[in-house]
């Protein structure tokens, strides 16, 4: 689907200009036209929607994305969700993402799922999916705390390949409720300090305890805050922009567990400027991905 067709199919545009749904007519045009036409880029998505094949599952995801104006979706991991996958398991998960990219390369960017517990196998998978394949980023989940030394060779190779790292983080009950290998933003700040200049994304930015997560990454300019995955609690976006600057903040949904809507709503409804919203909803991620896209010859 090209951009023009995307815009034509956007339900947001339809809602603003059509009278086909009279019950919605009382709602004023929202968000503003500039933001509606933007075409949002989503840093954090999983294709867990139902369907007989990975590509069909993606089709269901894209249908919903179109309705709310999400244009590009960074996808990673495929069900079943495995906290500490074996190399065979993460390769299977990545095979699904590769299958999706064959049909949906105009809408999806692939992030390779690795488990640093298996460093050698992870590096091999990085070669298969990013160096020799179509993916442009890395997803690290809860296999190992990300301040562990096993991550260093992965980060070094990622930097050589211009692959953007998305590291899950959460702070549950002030860290006491985290899974054994589940990272916090504080762990990621430690990793970042060992690899200055390598951009990374702090997945969920600590989740519900985002106020601590934002503080934890504040001093590392390479770290970017992914807003997605938690409840859309008022104040997160405003604090992230205030403490990090809008250029370090990214829209992410964490679908399919979350909706596009609840996570988009927090950005669109935030008390920040439209210029900052444009950065968060599209331009920051686009900028971060440009080196990898250029390497692959992808214009976006």
């Amino acid at each position: 689907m090209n951009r023009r067709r995307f815009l034509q199919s956007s339900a947001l545009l339809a809602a603003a200009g059509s009278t086909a749904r009279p019950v919605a007519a009382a709602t004023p045009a929202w968000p503003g036209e500039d933001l509606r036409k933007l075409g949002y880029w989503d840093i954090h998505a999983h294709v867990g929607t139902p369907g007989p094949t990975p590509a069909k599952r993606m089709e269901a995801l894209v249908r919903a994305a179109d309705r709310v104006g999400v244009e590009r979706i960074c996808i990673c991991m495929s069900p079943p969700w495995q906290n500490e996958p074996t190399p065979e398991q993460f390769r299977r998960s990545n095979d699904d993402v590769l299958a999706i990219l064959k049909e949906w390369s105009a809408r999806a960017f692939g992030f390779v799922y690795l488990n640093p517990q298996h460093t050698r196998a992870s590096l091999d998978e990085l070669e298969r999916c990013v160096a020799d394949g179509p993916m442009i980023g890395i997803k690290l989940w809860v296999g190992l705390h990300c301040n562990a030394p096993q991550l260093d060779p992965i980060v070094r190779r990622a930097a050589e390949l211009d692959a953007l790292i998305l590291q899950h983080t959460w702070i549950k009950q002030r860290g006491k409720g985290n899974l054994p290998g589940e990272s916090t933003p504080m762990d990621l700040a430690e990793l970042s300090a060992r690899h200055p200049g390598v951009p990374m994304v702090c997945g969920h930015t600590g989740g519900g305890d985002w106020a601590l997560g934002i503080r934890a990454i504040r001093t590392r300019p390479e770290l970017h805050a992914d807003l997605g995955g938690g409840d859309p609690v008022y104040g997160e976006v405003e604090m992230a922009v205030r403490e990090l600057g809008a250029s370090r903040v990214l829209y992410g949904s964490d679908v399919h567990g979350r909706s596009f809507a609840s996570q988009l709503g927090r950005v669109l409804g935030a008390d920040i400027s439209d210029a900052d919203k444009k950065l968060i909803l599209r331009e920051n991620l686009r900028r971060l991905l440009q080196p990898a896209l250029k390497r692959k010859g992808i214009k976006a």
Partner: protein
Amino acid sequence: MFLNTAAAAAVVSAGLRAAAPNAPAPAGAFIDTNVSLSHWAVRRSWVETPALLVGKLRGHGITSAWVGSFEGVLHSDIAGANERLATACARDGAGVLQPFGTINPTFPDWEDDLRRCHEVHRMRGLRLYPNYHGYTLDDARFRHLVELAARRGLLVQIALGIEDERSQNPGLTAAPVAAAPLADLLGGIRGARVMLLNAGSRVLGPVNPLLKRLVAAGVAFEIATLEGVAGIEVLLRANPAARLCFGSHTPYFYFESALLKLTESELTPAQRQALRSGHALAALAPA
């Protein structure tokens, strides 16, 4: 104070007549069933005044908002919190804010709080916070509360939570309320009307057997914590009889998060109308 309260009651009453039981929904009616005033203990609210809240809601087409008070969660003087809520809605609610008073059935003489909500403040519904107030839904006092509310024709809203359990301040924790006892309880109480707020994935899973039991028992729900891709569409496909209402949990949540869910899901005009106002108005109607 009496004059203020009396005037408040008159305005509230006038506002509610617009949403009289069994009346067809006015054209463009859009009801937010899950709104709060005052500040939640661990978060700053953008609602510095009720007028700000009304402006935001009206800007998005909301014609009526059912409003509880966060003061009711932690304050012991719940009667005072309810009075302030009623006054604020009447004075500054512009006909949009409809107060739902808090009742804590573990408090002495809570029955009089309920009476005042109905007779003095002319409220049409109540809001409960069982996990913060220290009781479960199989508690005899809760059953008695639902019975008394039913006799007065009051809708009972039960907040199953306020914030994600994983992110609660260690000094202020509360596990989500278990809704399972409701399914059997409601069948035995004539005229009982109950709506769950912030039910989340523990209840609102499309194939969750508990959801099916609660739907069969006539419980209503709202969408503030309904998640998943096209979550409303998916839930209604599996549970077409679910009485799903619009609810935002604002100002704790961004209002726009709930609003966009209506766009993400593909809904029939009838489903959309039911979500925007039909089910909410039906929840207020006598059984």
